[in-house]
């Protein structure tokens, strides 16, 4: 059994008004050294697989087909083995 922690973020060329707004909020709170904020999504997916390589391949396909839109988003993920 594996737990995939998937991070989906806007691609560097994509304008991210949510990130900019959050950055403004942090600055208003006095965090003036904040250089940038990019707003993304985080997913936790439990997968029933014995084989790590297969689990990894499957999560990559999930990201490509649905979880991230390659036109506007990048993805990365961590995979950790967990107790069933």
């Amino acid at each position, binding site marked *: 059994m594996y737990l995939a922690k998937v991070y989906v973020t806007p691609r560097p*060329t*994509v*304008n991210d*008004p*949510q990130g900019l*707004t959050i950055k403004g909020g942090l600055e208003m709170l006095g965090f003036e050294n904040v250089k940038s904020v990019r707003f993304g*999504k985080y997913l936790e997916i439990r997968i029933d697989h014995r084989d790590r390589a297969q689990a990894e391949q499957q999560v990559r396909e999930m990201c490509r087909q*649905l*979880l991230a*839109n390659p*036109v*506007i988003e990048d993805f990365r993920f961590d995979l950790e083995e967990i107790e069933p």
Partner: protein
Amino acid sequence: MKFGIIVFPGTWSDMDCHHALGIVLGQRVDYIWHKDTDLSGYDCVILPGGFSYGDYLRAGAIARFSPVMASVQRFAQEGKLVLGICNGFQILCEAGLLPGALLPNNHLQYRCQWTYLRVENNALPFTSGVEKGRVLKIPISHYDGNYYADEATLAELEAEGRVVFRYCTPEGEATEEANPNGALHNIAGIVNKGGNVLGMMPHPERACEELLGSTDGNLLFLSIINSM
């Protein structure tokens, strides 16, 4: 001429489209539930506005895997007409039938307002009855309407005349002030390479009677009807 209006869970402009086509323009029109896959007998399929699957993950991301979408892909490949309005435009982009994506509006506000659209290409079944350069008054109602594509795609769209509608002033100037959502190049609607799949954020079905404030939306529907 027969229209099909696809209904996903969360679609909300299906009845407006049905009203505009069936009642106002007297056309034959059916609803098509997203689990149906038979599109035979239809000349034009419309993916209406709304919030299919709650816009979860991304607008249009889940709807694109509804059973009907494989049929819509085939329908488009056969050269038949597909019109995506608002959420329908988002779904067509997610499905890869149109290039690019719709990002959240650059001001992060939901906008429900009149917009003015300049017709950039009238050599299409969707716009053949409208003069090029004419300004149409058609409303928008969306949060994710900020059209984005990479530089190469934008250049290709422009070079091939595939930007069909651009947000403009009532006088027809595509200014920054006239852009309601931050869309690149003031893009309000684009068409595929084949010229038979059109996606647009504004709602022509909500500009179909004087009582509503404009009848300019009918010009698009009449173009489709007269092109058949």
